[in-house]
């Protein structure tokens, strides 16, 4: 092995990443070559000096908070209202739309001789309306409509109750999982805090020991007296 080849392997040797064959070859070269041996020693010493540089501890922990949710405006609320597929919501929206459309176009409705008449943008004042003929039929429609609406409401109430129960159950499960997860995170936080406290206690002990030693050195006579007093006792 040449010195150049040896130099290429020195860093790997220093950090223990060489293959056994390379390691053996380098060690053999180092035994024979004093210049490379000295260089390897210098590298080792430099790493050793650097490793004496102790870590600093963060003065305070960085903490992030949950960003507040964005407030939604009126259009978003309308979209949210319609985004959930629900027959009553769609029926309400349709009714409102039809009402507005008819209102804007000044639409008038009439029923005459078995025919339903629409009139857009004009009055029906001049037309003869046979209310007496249409009244029973309208009443019948009225009753049928009321029945249909009543059934629809009942069916929806049952459906809503079922949905509510399902949602409560789902929420309950989510809450339980969240609680478990939070507890685990809190435990992790406590472990980190405990380790930090132990580290600080160790540092305090070292400081106290040092101070005690310094006190002893600064007052040798006093220390001797204490020692002598102990011996006399």
């Amino acid at each position: 092995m040449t010195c150049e080849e040896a130099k290429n392997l020195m860093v790997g040797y220093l950090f223990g990443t060489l293959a056994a064959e390379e390691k053996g070859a380098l060690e053999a070269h180092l035994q024979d070559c004093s210049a490379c041996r000295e260089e390897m020693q210098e590298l080792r010493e430099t790493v050793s000096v650097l490793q004496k540089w102790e870590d600093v501890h963060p003065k305070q922990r960085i903490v992030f908070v949950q960003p507040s949710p964005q407030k939604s405006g009126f259009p978003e609320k309308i979209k949210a209202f319609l985004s959930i597929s629900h027959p009553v919501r769609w029926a309400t929206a349709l009714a409102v739309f039809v009402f507005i459309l008819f209102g804007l176009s000044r639409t008038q409705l009439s029923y005459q001789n078995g025919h339903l008449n629409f009139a857009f943008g004009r009055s029906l004042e001049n037309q003869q309306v046979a209310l007496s003929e249409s009244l029973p039929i309208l009443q019948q429609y009225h009753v049928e409509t009321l029945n249909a609406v009543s059934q629809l409401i009942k069916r929806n109430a049952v459906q809503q109750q079922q949905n509510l129960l399902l949602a409560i159950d789902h929420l309950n499960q989510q809450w339980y999982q969240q609680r478990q997860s939070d507890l685990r995170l809190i435990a992790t936080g406590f472990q980190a805090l405990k380790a930090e406290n132990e580290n600080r206690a160790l540092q305090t002990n070292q400081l106290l020991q040092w101070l005690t030693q310094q006190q002893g050195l600064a007052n040798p006579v006093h220390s001797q007296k204490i020692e002598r007093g102990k011996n006399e006792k």
Partner: protein
Amino acid sequence: MDSVSDQELIEKYKRGQVQAFNVLTWRWQGRILNFLYRYLGNITDAEDICQTTFLKVFQKLKHLQDTQKFSAWLYQIALNQARDYFRRKKRQSVLSLNQTIGNAADDTLEAILADDSELSPDHDLQQKEMQKILSESLQRISEDQRVVIIMKIFENLKFSEIVDILKVPEGTVKSRLYTGLKSLRTVLERSHLGKEVWKS
């Protein structure tokens, strides 16, 4: 031992749990702070860049696909932030290799003690003096070599991890480490670092 892995914390954060991100931050804050401190040579700058780094991570973590490479990704962000900071401040090292370290006017005992308001015992004083010399020495070698030395010796990263972070071949990493250590040795030998430090 931490019971929850980084990957699990990242997944929890992606599902909206900010507290999981805080745990992840506290786990890595110390290492990133020390990495930045040794790279920048100034603890106040390091603290600022450390905060900026975790803010970037907070914003971008949801888009990280390969969570197994989180640590490499985190070091990349920290390094980019530090390099940006250097560029902004135009504080690229222009000091000469021949200039003696540790003899400047601000190296007085009072100046060193004033670095930290806490009462420091003898060990801390020696440590602070040594840190100052090592920190200044690191600033005098090339940036490429400094990064590799910090990652390998202080962060104890594997060569393959350094390759992932720096996106350079392993041979280049080893070569930068070798030349960096030699340059650093030259600088340190001219410093006021006590001879006993080399032997102990």
